[in-house]
């Protein structure tokens, strides 16, 4: 099939490219070549807009999936670039030199998933969790419900009255 991404296959033979629908394409690439691929997409193919940088926790495979969503504003094409990094001591190359706003995404990923991006500006500063000392909360082995119940003083449920018993007690207190 002739897609706008045909020359990606020739430039990056390691990249696994597939089509979801017209104007939405996926590609998966090893971690080491990801920055090269993203740079190529921005500088050569015209994907100028970083829509989102996010992560998925594949705890069964012991992997984190990083997804970079890029957009070509002229051809109206979205591309989702995926890569997998190991879950133990996860580290990834930063892309803040391509898009400045990536530093914010990377700071959030550092806090919520514990993925480190060495060299990214202010990546170690707390983002919304100030003074967090547990494992990063978006990891799937973090039990949010248990943490919330232990930390935030849950209110015991209210007492409910069975209407039948309640009215019996109220109207005929002597008969009970």
């Amino acid at each position, binding site marked *: 099939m002739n897609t706008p991404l045909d020359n990606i296959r020739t430039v990056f033979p390691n990249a696994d490219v597939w089509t979801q629908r017209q104007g939405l394409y996926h590609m998966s690439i090893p971690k080491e070549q990801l920055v090269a691929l993203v740079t190529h997409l921005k500088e050569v193919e015209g994907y100028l807009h970083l829509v989102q940088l996010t992560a998925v926790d594949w705890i069964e495979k012991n992997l984190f999936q990083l997804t970079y969503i890029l957009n070509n504003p002229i051809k109206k094409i979205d591309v989702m670039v995926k890569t997998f990094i190991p879950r133990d001591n996860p580290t990834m190359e930063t892309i803040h030199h391509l898009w400045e706003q990536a530093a914010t995404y990377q700071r959030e990923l550092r806090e919520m998933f514990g993925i480190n991006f060495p060299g990214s500006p202010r990546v170690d500063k*707390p983002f*919304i*969790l*100030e*003074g*967090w*000392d547990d494992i990063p*909360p978006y990891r799937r082995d*973090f039990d*949010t*419900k248990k*943490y*919330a*119940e232990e*930390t*935030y*003083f*849950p*209110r015991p449920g209210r007492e409910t009255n069975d209407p039948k018993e309640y009215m019996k007690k109220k109207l005929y207190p002597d008969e009970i």
Partner: protein
Amino acid sequence: MSKSDLEKRTVMSPDGEPIEINPLQDYFCDARPKVHEPVLPIFEKFLNWARSESLWVLGFGTGCGAIEMRPLMTPRFDAYRFGIQWRPTPRQSSVFIISGYLSVKTLKRVIRSYEQMQNPKFVIALGSCTINGGMYWDSYNTIKRLDHYLPVDVYIAGCMPRPEAILAGFEKLKELIREGKGEGANLYAQNFDWYKANQKKIIKDWDMPDYNW
């Protein structure tokens, strides 16, 4: 202000002399809050009436419920006719509306703002999130019970309460104040250690003075 501004450091005075400063001690008051005993009952009754008729609200929207406070300022609901108005700074306010969910990061700012308000001060908690966590009941970063961190005078249940409900809540608060039950600030001073222990349990990077008015 960043965290590094609160660290001990040596600065040069205009005369060229080095001065050691410790901002947490030098710039903030660390005295404990005091319980204010009521004066003569008949005079206190008059004061309470005056307080209830002039509720100045701190314009600090902590959560999504802040959107319901905007219509109160418009001609349709017009809270100003009840003597309620919004102020930009805690120093001028007497009512703190906690409007919805509170994340831990916001709670820290809320405590600082509450402690900067002048006595007597009242807290209205808006929405079910302040009562038991609401839809954030299993969130890792949202508090469940506001009354463990601040003394609450009136709860307005709902998600979100309509502006009419908020006006009804203000009427209830006025009633309580007139009856002399708006004692939140004294309650906070009496149980200061308990409140501080609860606050410090969840605010783990406590980098402000214990009491900072």
